[in-house]
């Protein structure tokens, strides 16, 4: 069951902006209010708009089921892998070994008010990205499966 042409056109226009706003919230999670969970929920809202405007059976090129499964498991694996990488180097599990190291995301931060730098935070931005991708995949998968059950009920 597709919705009307007005809704579909508005979805096509709005979808990139919602996705980009969600990515902004995810990437700036260590500087501004936000983070992986909230940004992932925002991006999932954008994808849910696509799923509701089009039919879930057609799965318009913007959404792919296999890619969603890959996001769901890949996000969790990246999360655990970032924790395990500290053990390989020789630190305890989940030790923030990137913070203050001077490499990527490693600019040291002093105590007190400061304007904020994107290149800080150690492995927290990596964790934010992992959790954001996982929440995105998870929420859209739940919606996809519930919609499939709903459509089945209508046909019967």
């Amino acid at each position, binding site marked *: 069951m597709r919705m009307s042409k007005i809704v579909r056109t508005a979805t096509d226009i709005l979808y990139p902006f919602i996705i980009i706003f969600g990515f902004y919230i995810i990437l700036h999670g260590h*500087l*501004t*209010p936000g*983070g992986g*969970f*909230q940004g992932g*929920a925002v991006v999932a809202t954008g994808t849910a708009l696509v799923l509701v405007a089009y039919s879930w059976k057609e799965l318009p090129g913007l959404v792919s089921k296999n890619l969603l499964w890959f996001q769901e498991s890949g996000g969790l694996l990246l999360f655990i892998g970032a924790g395990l990488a500290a053990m390989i180097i020789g630190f305890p599990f989940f030790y923030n070994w990137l913070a203050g190291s001077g490499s990527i995301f490693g600019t040291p931060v002093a105590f*007190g*008010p*400061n*304007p*904020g730098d994107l290149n800080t935070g150690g492995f927290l931005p990596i964790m934010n990205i992992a959790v954001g991708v996982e*929440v995105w995949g*998870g*929420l859209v998968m*739940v919606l996809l*499966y*519930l919609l499939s*059950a709903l459509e089945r*009920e209508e046909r019967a």
Partner: protein
Amino acid sequence: MFLNLPYVTVVLLTCLGIAAILFKRNLLKILLGINILESAVNLLIIAIGYREGGVAPIYTLAPSTNMVLPTPQALVLTSIVIGVATSALLLSFSIIIYRKYGTVNVNLIRELRE
């Protein structure tokens, strides 16, 4: 008493949720009661962590360093996402039960099974 208004709201929401779970016979209304209970718990944790005149625990260029406690906010952050996931799981259970028994009334389901 009025200074404790958030805590009184927590008590009201808790009793509302438990009453919905105990008195309602519809599975969807029980699910709504569980969600209300969860909101009450979230509000309680947030209210415990509030500090008088505090700002959000984020360092910016603002000079104020009187901040609310960060740990309750982080706990509630994860709790909300868990709530969404469990709500989806319970809704799926409701759909399966409706398809098998043809009703979501708890009493009728119990009679049908025995």
